């Protein structure tokens, strides 16, 4: 599985959302499934999936799928 596939699977699983809806353009709070509660679930699943520890600033900054990729790159995950 590539990192992009892993990212999509993690989003889909954490937000209980069909994988086809997980696109770069998907933004935080634009759909009921991605609210402040599921956001914390998402963060913890991303940490497990990519074996990283995400800082507070980045939790707040993670406002879209595209942004999630950008942030994970800082933690040496390549896309």
């Amino acid at each position, binding site marked *: 599985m590539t990192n992009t596939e892993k990212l999509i699977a993690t989003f889909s699983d954490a937000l209980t959302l069909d994988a086809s809806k997980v696109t770069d353009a998907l933004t935080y*709070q634009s759909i009921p499934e991605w609210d402040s509660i599921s956001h*914390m679930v998402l963060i913890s699943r991303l940490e497990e999936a990519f074996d990283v*520890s995400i800082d*507070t*600033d980045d939790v707040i900054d993670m406002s879209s799928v595209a942004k999630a990729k950008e942030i994970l790159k800082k933690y040496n995950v390549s896309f």
Partner: protein
Amino acid sequence: MVIEDYIQIPPYSLARAEKEPSMVVLLNELHALHVDRCDAYRKVSEVIFGGIKKISSSDQLPFIPVSMFKTHELKSIADGSVYKVLTSSGTTGSIPSRIFLDQQTASLQSLALSKIMTHMLGNSRLPMLIIDSQSVLKDRNTFSARGAGILGMSIFGKNHTYLLDDAFEIDMGALEKFAEQFNGQKMLLFGFTFMVWKYLFEQSGIALDLSKAILIHSGGWKKMNELAVDNDVFKSELNKKFGLQHVYNFYGMVEQVGSVYIENEKGFLHCPNFSDIIIRNPVDFSVQKNGEEGLIQVISALPRSYPGHSILTEDIGVCMGEDDLSWKGKYFRILGRAKKADLRGCSDTFAQSA
């Protein structure tokens, strides 16, 4: 300066000479916005405050009594833009406050809170023990003040563990697992003051080493005072039982989420750059000097979706000083709630105007 940039400044770095000009600009913008979009705020501003258009110092800003959030639907956005409604827990039988948030105000609040908390906790998220039950988060669209507080603080934690199960009994399984993994490590504890005392202190029943833990707690001292437990006793008892050394109380309200006042090095509550307090004489609402008690007016540069940028609370407090500690800004302490009878005249005046 726009609020998004102003929030980025380290939260306790601005002394009055720098803070006041920025706040006056931000508050003038908010005042104009709410006069324009919220009828009740405009009426209060016209009838009680002479229709002031522009302020030149923050103490000229109109304020609305906190009780108006119970009696009026105070909103400065269209119904379709409401993203979340926060409600105050309130006492049984009383009408709760309702606070309408759009996405912009919600995200400003969460950013502001994060600036304060990362200042205390650092940027690494810490294992987090929440002294409450997850059941308070059940309804995702309408959060109680308690739910909103827990959710807001969750950002700073990981491995979130709730001390209580849905029946509000100690979840021994969860607690043991948490202790096994994190005992003696740096961790974050969060809860309401009374819950921390009643459950963590009195009932948790297992040996926890919290010597490196940071406890952040809020919710008022009314119930605690009935038990004759003040802040000093609270801290020393938690220290004796768990070795807990870092305990910070904070003052905040559902009407101004994000603008919290956290305990400083002297044990007083401290205003961050984007919030302020003014102590007002309960009879004529004039500004009290430092050291004189009065009603606490809370000012925040954050609320855009509802007119909550300037609120007269029902709490009595005293401003203890300003700009003379390592943190800049005013600091104060709370003496308790104002007497009902003293507030009635005030709220009637406002209610009639709006």
